């Protein structure tokens, strides 16, 4: 069972290759291969999960083979499986499977259908690699590969300039974070002498890593998590990433890849735990992100972007939880969020598939046309907003409780974000599915999606509804995913019942207000927009973060232009081709310069040499007595030397 877990990513890799090479001849143009592999993976993950809960396997499990050695150190390829891994594995395989099924409908008829599935399989493989690997080096590799897949999939419809741009933006922004990863990893290597996760954790647990080093490494590593998991200030790429097909958004930019940052922090939690400073950075960045992203979602009219901001906000929650010390809560939120956010994205995809627009202002009243989509979207919304007894309620309140335990301000920020979440989700729901159709043509054209698309929606909806409750039965999740020394997972403690009640009421209230405002009195939001136009502008400009990063890029460009002009105009022309300018001046001064010299002057170090040569050549006047004079000079000097010597 466990011994064969390493096959999972390899199989996905193989599937990717298979689809790319032979997809044409496979059923469903190759989608079948991807789906089959994903299904198998899911079954394995589920089996593992069950066994792990029942205690049928001993964790953690580790196996590795040598990969290559460098200067006395060894890099390995291997798997490291503990509860955390299994939880993540379940998320990845499940969402991947459902998204792939869904995509057969969504991507139907796309000219690059085959390639899409290849990318999806490649992504799944890399993501499984991130999840399973035993070595931070391989982790980094798969991490980057995930990024590339994201790049390829965001820019899947690359004929759209915006899609191409978004892909690049996503890649470079996350790459910025990756620099932190690289340096952090180097720090970690020199602190521990190894890339093996198990050894690093062991050393960290033993406290063998100095806190300062651990803190530095942890913060640097957090930079990369911030990039991939779209934390402040690097979250700017995620809204733009919605240029990709909706299933991609569901899989990569909602459920799995963006959660990888959280997963990484959780993976190296022992290192983070060594440094309170690092923990604080994580917590506060998470809180800030949760708040900012939620506020950004308030004014957004693009359905997918609303969901994207929502994702960012929820990721902020997870980080906040981890930073606050609530290890299990963070991971629990990751798990539930993966399902309902994937659901929301897929439902949104279904809507977009029907009306061919992302803009909520052109939708409305779609609940009649697309009942299944509507119901599932509604369930997802409820789960997200944290209305009991849906999944989000269990996880989010856990996070808020942890925040409260840690720091009341953290809790306040989190609660505000929760309120906003409820509000904007209500807004989105109402604008999309309720009210009158705003674009009649699009409305008429709309229709319910086919079964391959609604099927996964229903499944996910079911999971979203029950997962929170199920996973907390018998401390199931807590047993699986825990960290010694972290805050306990304590929903059932009465003291935190208050938090649960409070947050549920806030969410419900906020949601009701939102729904009422947008359904019954749509003029009020419009009025508010006008009244608070500076705030709205700030939100629409995304707190000017985009502008800030564009400025950075601009500075980079200027810098590069300057460096190149230095290289070309100064270093090459002036210093090396040296004196060319001087020579030219000199040549103008001296009328006797021949034409061919100018031809020759286009030359190396030599321009200076040439001018020296020209001077030397002056001596060769052709007048014999000038020559003789030189001889005479030499003779006289010789005579003088003889006398002097």
């Amino acid at each position, binding site marked *: 069972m466990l011994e064969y877990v390493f096959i999972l990513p390899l199989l996905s890799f193989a599937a990717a290759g298979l689809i790319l090479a032979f997809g044409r001849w496979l059923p469903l143009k190759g989608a079948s291969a991807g789906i089959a592999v994903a299904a198998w993976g899911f079954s394995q993950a589920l089996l593992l999960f069950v066994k792990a809960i029942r205690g049928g396997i001993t964790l953690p499990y580790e196996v590795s083979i040598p990969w290559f050695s460098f200067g006395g150190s060894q890099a390995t390829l291997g798997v490291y499986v503990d509860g955390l891994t299994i939880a993540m594995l379940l998320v990845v395989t499940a969402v991947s499977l459902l998204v792939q099924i869904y995509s057969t409908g969504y991507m139907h008829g796309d000219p690059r259908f085959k390639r899409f599935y290849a990318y999806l399989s490649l992504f799944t493989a890399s993501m499984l690699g991130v999840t399973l690997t035993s070595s931070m080096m391989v982790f980094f590799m798969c991490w980057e590969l995930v990024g590339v897949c994201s790049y390829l999939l965001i820019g899947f419809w690359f004929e759209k300039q915006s899609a*191409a741009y978004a892909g690049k933006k996503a890649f470079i922004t996350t790459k910025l974070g990756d620099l932190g990863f690289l340096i952090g990893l180097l720090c970690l290597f020199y602190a521990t002498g190894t890339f093996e996760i198990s050894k690093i954790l062991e050393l960290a647990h033993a406290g063998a890593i100095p806190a300062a080093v651990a803190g530095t490494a942890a913060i640097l590593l957090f930079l990369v998590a911030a990039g991939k998991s779209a934390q402040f200030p690097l979250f700017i790429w995620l809204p733009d990433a919605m240029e990709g097909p909706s299933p991609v958004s569901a899989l990569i930019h909602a459920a799995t890849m963006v959660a990888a940052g959280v997963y990484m922090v959780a993976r190296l939690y022992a290192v983070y735990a060594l440094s309170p400073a690092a923990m604080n950075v994580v917590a506060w960045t998470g809180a800030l992100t949760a708040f900012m992203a939620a506020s950004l979602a308030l004014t957004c009219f693009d359905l997918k972007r609303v969901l994207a901001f929502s994702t960012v906000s929820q990721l902020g929650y997870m980080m906040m939880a981890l930073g606050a010390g609530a290890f299990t809560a963070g991971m629990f939120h990751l798990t539930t969020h993966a399902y309902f956010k994937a659901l929301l994205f897929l439902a949104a995809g279904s809507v977009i598939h029907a009306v061919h627009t992302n803009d909520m202002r052109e939708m409305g009243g779609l609940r009649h046309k697309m009942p299944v989509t509507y119901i599932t979207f509604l369930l997802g919304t409820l789960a997200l907003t944290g209305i009991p007894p849906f999944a989000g309620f269990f996880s989010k309140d856990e996070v808020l409780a942890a925040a409260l335990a840690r720091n009341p301000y953290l809790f306040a920020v989190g609660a505000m974000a929760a309120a906003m979440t409820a509000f904007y989700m209500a807004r989105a729901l109402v604008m999309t599915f309720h009210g009158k159709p705003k674009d009649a043509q699009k409305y008429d054209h709309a229709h319910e999606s086919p079964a391959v698309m609604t099927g996964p929606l229903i499944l996910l909806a079911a999971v979203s509804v029950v997962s929170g409750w199920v996973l907390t039965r018998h401390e199931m999740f807590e047993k699986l995913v825990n960290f010694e020394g972290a805050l306990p997972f304590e929903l059932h403690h009465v003291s935190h019942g208050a938090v649960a009640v409070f947050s549920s009421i806030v969410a419900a209230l906020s949601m009701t207000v939102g729904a009422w405002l947008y359904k019954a009195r749509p003029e009020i939001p419009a009025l508010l927009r006008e009244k608070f136009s500076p705030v709205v502008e700030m939100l629409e400009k995304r707190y000017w973060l985009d502008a800030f990063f564009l400025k950075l890029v601009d500075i980079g460009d200027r810098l590069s232009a300057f*460096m*190149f002009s230095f290289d070309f105009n100064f270093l090459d022309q002036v210093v090396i081709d040296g004196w060319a300018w001087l020579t030219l001046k000199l040549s103008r001064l001296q009328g006797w310069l021949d034409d061919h010299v100018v031809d020759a002057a286009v030359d190396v170090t030599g321009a200076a040499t040439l001018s020296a040569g020209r001077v030397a050549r002056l001596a060769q006047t052709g007048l014999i007595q000038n020559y003789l004079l030189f001889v005479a000079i030499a003779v006289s000097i010789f005579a003088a030397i003889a006398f002097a010597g």
Partner: protein
Amino acid sequence: MSLLSLIVITPLIGALLILAIPGTRIKLIQGVALVFSALCLVLSGQLYRVFDTTTAAMQLVQRVSWIPAFNIYYYVGVDGLSVALVILTALLTVLAIIYSFNITLRVKEFFFWFLLLEVGMLGVFVSLDFFLFYVFWELTLVPMYFLIGVWGGPKKEYAAIKFFLYTLFGSLLMLLGILALYFNSTPHTFDMVELINQARLLPLTMQIWIFLALYVGFAIKIPAFPFHTWLPLAHVEAPTGVSVILAGVLLKMGTYGIMRVSFPALPLATRWFMPFLIVIAVINIVYGAFCAMAQKDLKKMVAYSSVNHMGYCLLGMTAMSAIGFNGAVLQMITHGLITGSLFFLVGVIYDRAHTRDIDAFGGLAARFPIYAGLMIIQVMASLGLPGLAGFVGEFLCFLGAFNSWPYYVGIATIGILVTAAFFLRMIEKVFLGPFNEKWAGLKDMDLRELIAIVPLAVLTIVIGIWPRFCLDLIDPTITYLVGIIK
């Protein structure tokens, strides 16, 4: 005749044979060039097979007295440092020759010079006698001069002479350094192995001067800032096959020389120079990347990216540890593969569109999927994507250098980011976005081009996934090398 001599002499025979064929028999000339370069590749494959990866000693040594008056030997051999470079040279030459079948101008001369160039390059990597090394080193110059000057772009003549003078200046200084080493050994010898043992005992000042003389020669080849200005020009003007060799092999001669001789023979000076070298390495990385970003010309961009990548190599070398050295050598090899194929790919598009202006294209991925795929793979490899060849070397360079120079490494990472930025921007502009209908008539890659490029792409992936192919060759020697430097 030993295997190494056979490897070196095979292309020479080919070159002479070509000289004997009338210039009108183009197919025959191409055939001969291909056969002899392929034979050379096969022999180097044999070299890979017989090479013993467990020892750091020189292998397949052949030593024949050549000029006893100066105690000069024809002395060849390989160790982990050079064996992979020999194979790389043989491989890239074959591919470049295949690619160059599209050359129609003065075919005979082209392949003559090309094979002669191969002799020089192989010779540099197998020589263990410093004099012999120098002879081969210079031997690469002349063919290169003609290859750039006759078959190059619009400013070919300028580029050719600039390349020639620049490199010659460096190598002549190197010659003085070599002579200084020679006269400071007892008995006077050019034997590198012996020199390494003897020169390390020289006083610091002497070592510094010799190091400097050698360094200038090597640095120009690498090219290390500020001696790099010949490179963009030469690359841009050179024909595709030659650019490939230039980037893939010739640049490596510089770093190879430093690691082969300068470091082990002059350890005191090496340590003395380290603070400068790390600064140069960082400048190369950051500055090269930024310069590349400013380029509108695809080829120039790749050329400057070479400056950046050789900076990684230097970075690894400044680590003075086995990790860094491993990284540096691996980086040499992978850079050869990656940048070589990037130059091929640039050549492919230039052959079709007759422009390399990045802004002139757009959306090519839709119509040229194979081309776009290969280009994206190599670009990703070049910007250090894990799983592809570029990553491991680069990572090891950083890893090695981090221990000694954490802050410099921190600065150097900017280079990674900028590299990613300019490469992705290039991909966006050239391959993505709406298709530029101006290029509707162009065809995707043909068989000749695929044969030249696909092996490199395959190797890029294979080495990326399983770097032991290279590292196992390198590691023992590097461990030994670090041992004698420290």
